[in-house]
């Protein structure tokens, strides 16, 4: 019986794999979020960071991607730094490099960012033109190479938690900062240092924001957040307000990117940690990639976590 079953499953797997390989063709570049614990220095360490608490799901997930002929690459940067330090130029260069690999050349390159990684990506997309005030030539090359961005629990307008914890870190935890130094990245996550606050007005390629929402109390309005990040920040909406359920399409002129390329693509009623698929939580709505129509139906996570869950609950970028 087991032999027959194995044969049947093998046949089905081969059939699915063969069809998927013929149907799907693209590259994903995954950009991680804040990581106060370590400097992520290579693609291998970035991947390991994603996998560290994925409970093995990522491996199966990658196998599914491979069957669908989707190349998944892991971008790395020092998640302890503000986005405008070396993070954005380094990520831009990696996107260019990934786009030029044999596996990805000529194929659509989709960026999937999480949390603070989305601020880094905003910086690249918003300053891609030589006339932009913070332009870096690497931003232009990277933006040209990207098809679109999928933002998951993205920090697009700063974080009110950072407004408070930046104070706490600097004033109350000064000694501790000298050891584990989370404060610099927090500085980059304050609302006053966000792209919105610095007057950014456009993104160079479409950004589809998937907001998390879990009704915690941290931000204002209370309950309009994913436990870490306000709903309006995840969607780049420039004004504080009650936006729950307002996830269809985009909000013309209400986004800090005024060129109409930022979209509220999806709303997942999941908290910030769950947004990247931590600890076996399911995110049904994120199963399907619009680039290929690929469905990760057997594995419930798109992303794995890389930080201490308890701390993510509290600081959670």
């Amino acid at each position, binding site marked *: 019986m087991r032999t027959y079953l194995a044969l049947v499953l093998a046949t089905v797997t081969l059939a699915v794999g063969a069809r998927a390989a013929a149907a799907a063709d693209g590259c994903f570049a995954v950009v991680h979020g804040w990581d106060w614990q370590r400097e992520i220095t290579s693609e291998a360490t970035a991947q390991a960071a994603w996998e560290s608490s994925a409970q093995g799901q990522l491996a199966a997930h990658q196998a599914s991607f491979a069957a669908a002929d989707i190349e998944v690459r892991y971008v790395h940067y020092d998640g302890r730094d503000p986005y405008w330090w070396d993070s954005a130029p380094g990520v831009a260069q990696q996107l260019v490099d990934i786009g030029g690999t044999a596996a990805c050349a000529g194929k659509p390159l989709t960026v999937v960012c999480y949390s603070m990684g989305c601020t880094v990506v905003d910086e690249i997309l918003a300053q891609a033109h030589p006339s932009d005030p913070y332009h870096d030539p690497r931003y232009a090359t990277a933006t040209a190479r990207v098809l679109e961005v999928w933002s998951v629990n993205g920090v697009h307008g700063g974080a009110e938690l950072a407004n408070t914890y930046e104070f706490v870190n600097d004033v109350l935890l000064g000694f501790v900062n000298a050891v584990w130094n989370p404060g610099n990245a927090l500085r980059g996550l304050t609302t006053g240092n966000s792209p919105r606050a610095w007057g950014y007005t456009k993104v160079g390629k479409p950004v589809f924001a998937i907001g998390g929402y879990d009704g915690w109390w*941290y931000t204002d309005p209370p*309950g309009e957040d994913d436990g870490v990040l306000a709903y309006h920040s995840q969607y780049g909406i420039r004004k504080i307000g009650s936006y729950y359920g307002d996830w269809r399409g985009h909000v013309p002129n209400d986004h800090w990117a*005024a060129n109409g390329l930022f979209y509220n*693509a999806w709303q997942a009623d999941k908290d910030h940690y769950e947004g990247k698929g931590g600890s076996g939580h399911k995110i049904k709505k994120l199963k399907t990639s619009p680039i290929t129509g690929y469905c990760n139906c057997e594995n419930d996570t798109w992303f794995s976590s890389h930080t201490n869950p308890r701390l993510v609950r509290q600081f959670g970028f």
Partner: protein
Amino acid sequence: LASRPGTGGGGARRRLALAGVGALVLVAALIVWRSRASAPALTAAEAAAPGVPPSWGPAPALHAGGPALAADPKRGDDDDEPGLRDGPSEAEIRAFRRWRVDNLRRAARFPGDSLPLTARHREALTEVQPDRGAVTDPGPGGLDVLVAYPARPFFQAGEPILLHAAVVHARDGTRSAARITGTLMKAIDGPHDGALATVTYRDDGAGGDAVAGDLLYTAQVTPAILAPELLVGQVEVEVSATLADGRERFVVSQFRAGTPGARLTGRFRDRLEGGHLILEADLAVVRPGRYHLQGGLEGPGGTPVAWAQHAEVIDAPGAATLSLRFFGLAFHEAGISGPYRLAFVSVAETGRRPVLQGPVLEGAHVTAPYAVADFSGAPHQDPAWDETIRQAEAIEGMPLAPGVVRGR
């Protein structure tokens, strides 16, 4: 061949296996049938609306007034929330793919240095967004947040700097009395290097505070308190408030201070070139550097028309000129003939984060009375965008993988 345990032949086992496979096929067929039967079609509005991607299913029910915070402020972790579903239908995926191509084509029409003008372009220079703290203890009476913000997003060197703060209830917006102080820190590109000054926020109608007793507190930073040369760039204000019952609130706020090394003289010239409107702005430069100019044009009646920006290195002090190119297609899309009013314009010195932003001049120039027909209606040409669109078209032509849509 010897039979191994558990793998020996037998009609019963074969029948059992075949029955199992048959059951699997039956279940799969039922899933296909049910999923197809439940797939809603796109609405006509969703399919037709430009600029709005097709949605993939019904929105979850709206919260009326937000979630309850009393016992368990965290909403359920249940994945089986009503209204959610596993994935889009085939029609929705195909509609999205079609929309993606059209959307990229729309976006590619304009260059990165000139776009149709929106309200955001002006607000990006003038708007103050309050920095709010987090709600740290959502118990009874615990929804007070400390909100702090500067009176303007940036101040020129030597200008009095007004800073506001209030403790606001996150639900009803009422303010509470508090003792509020702020510590000014220069803290953008390196470690915090100590406090520049400490200020006390007041609510007595003096020292820059507009209205006494309104619980909107104000602190004023003057050159007498802090020399302007110490206030250049992004300044962080660490604000702390102690409420009447002893509870404390914290927030970090920011403002920009300093004057760029070039200023607009107020002299502008306009002309047509290649179907676009060129606006030249004269500058007086005291410090070489990279300078960024941006401005917005409005038609008669204040109708938004076009925004443009330009950045250039100016390597010597003295007189200089920066030019904005307002893209011709924007005039066609607005459909309004001139004269056009330079609704706002401002120059900034780049090379630091954030930039040193100069004053925003409003209505500083009116162009010649150009007609829409004077401008080129041709879209921007960019091989990189062409390649992106080609890739999107390739995706559109791909067959859908199995398991993608409900029913497959």
